[in-house]
């Protein structure tokens, strides 16, 4: 299977502190890969390096063999949820997405389609500052899906979602994978992710602990038990 995303000895240091320490891993196309680890493990930093928002201290993070910055029309190939904020609070959901459409050469008509996909069709004209955290997460997902990209990079997309929202997210991820998309989804909620992902990368303190298909990693245990086993080795 083709490699969609590749970390090669990725290292990121902030003021002498190693946030990511020589992370090497590959994410295969058309699968949901969980990028798991406790808070502060370095997941978000690694994803920020992957998306060109932070410059690696050394090593590389590539999408289909290129850095994000060198992709032609990146938003049309990669959708990302990095932060549920990131919207103009005084503007409606629709206008926030229209701003992104203009930047990424996406037809304006697509806005209503994605808002419907994330069940926000009744809040099109509502100001984002009036949104709950869960609604903001859905809007972030809508922004990521705007261009119908082949690769989705989602950083803690379940944050703020209620149990119904989490179930909805699981179904969404599954349907995206079924349509052949590659999804890299980070989370610190291991129990919830074990029902959603095909493969896992587990990191702790910036270092890769284990990578592989979820059943191989779990070895009959829950993901949480398996994680503790790997960390305590």
């Amino acid at each position, binding site marked *: 299977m083709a490699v969609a995303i590749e970390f090669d000895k990725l290292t990121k240091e902030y003021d002498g502190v190693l946030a990511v320490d020589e992370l090497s891993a590959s994410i295969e196309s058309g699968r949901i890969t969980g990028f798991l680890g406790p808070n502060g493990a370095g997941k978000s930093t690694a994803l920020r390096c992957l998306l060109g928002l932070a410059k690696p201290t050394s090593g590389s993070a590539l999408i289909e063999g290129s850095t994000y910055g060198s992709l032609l029309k990146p938003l049309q190939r990669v959708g990302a949820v990095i932060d549920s904020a990131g919207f103009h609070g005084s*503007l409606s959901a629709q206008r926030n997405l229209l701003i*992104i459409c203009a930047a990424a050469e996406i037809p304006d008509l697509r806005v209503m389609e994605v808002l419907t996909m994330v069940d926000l069709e009744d809040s099109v004209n509502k100001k984002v500052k009036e949104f709950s955290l869960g609604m903001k997460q859905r809007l972030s997902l809508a922004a990521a899906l705007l261009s119908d990209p082949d690769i989705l990079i989602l950083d803690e997309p379940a944050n703020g979602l209620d149990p119904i929202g989490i179930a909805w997210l699981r179904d969404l991820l599954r349907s995206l994978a079924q349509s052949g998309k590659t999804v890299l989804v980070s989370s610190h909620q291991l129990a919830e992710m074990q029902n959603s992902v095909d493969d896992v990368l587990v990191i702790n303190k910036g270092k890769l602990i284990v990578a592989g298909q979820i059943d191989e990693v779990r070895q009959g245990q829950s993901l949480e038990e398996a994680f503790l086993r790997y960390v305590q080795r």
Partner: protein
Amino acid sequence: MNLFKSELRKVLYTKTFRLSILGATFISLLSSIPSPYITQQAGGLIQNASFMNPEIINGLYSKALAGYLFSAIFGVILMAGEFKEMTAVRTFLASPKRIHVVYSKLVIAVLGGAIIMLISTTLGAVGAYFALKHYPHTAPTSSMLPTLLGDALLTGASIGVLGLAVGTLIRNQNIAVTGTIIYLYIVERMIVLFWSTGGKWLPSGLLTAMMNVNVKISSKIGGFNYDPSNYLKPTYAAMLLVGYSVIAGAIAIKVSLSRDID
């Protein structure tokens, strides 16, 4: 072009631009309308303070340029607002080539700053025109209006870029806006009033020089002296103001390219 369109949508959808025009117009009218009365009351301090002196009338109309602070604030919010609203991530994801983002913001800062000044200065000049109707006065010099509008455009564009650079360097929008207001309206004005040798090199001093108003003001009580012969020639002042904005734009580009996006 796509990024420009996206930035334009941000400007048109949010209130910052409209509020900047309103604020600049308010300050411009506040400066220009009472100025004939103030000038008349302060006649003893101003040489040839007669409203029959066209230079005095030019000076009164130049008060309409007072709204430039809002071009600066517009520029500051254009960049610092991205970090306040935390939209910087989405902007840079749409265009990972950050240089393109900064270029499009620079163009918006130039255009937006110039439009803010053009509107506020025009309305301020109209205010001065009606205020002067209450006094017997002569007409301004024939070059006054084109100079005023030209200065408005140049100042708005340049100060807009300077504001953008401040917003790039100081990502906390509240600190950047407050600092800009305090600097432009208090610190710089004090320097220009009381130390024209140094003040003439600052944006306010350059703006004063660009209006080429040949009126001397002196006060023994306040200790300030305004003598146009101390200021740069209008052309040099305009060139220096543009130079400042070019340097500020270069700093904005360099800082944006080198920083991680939070």
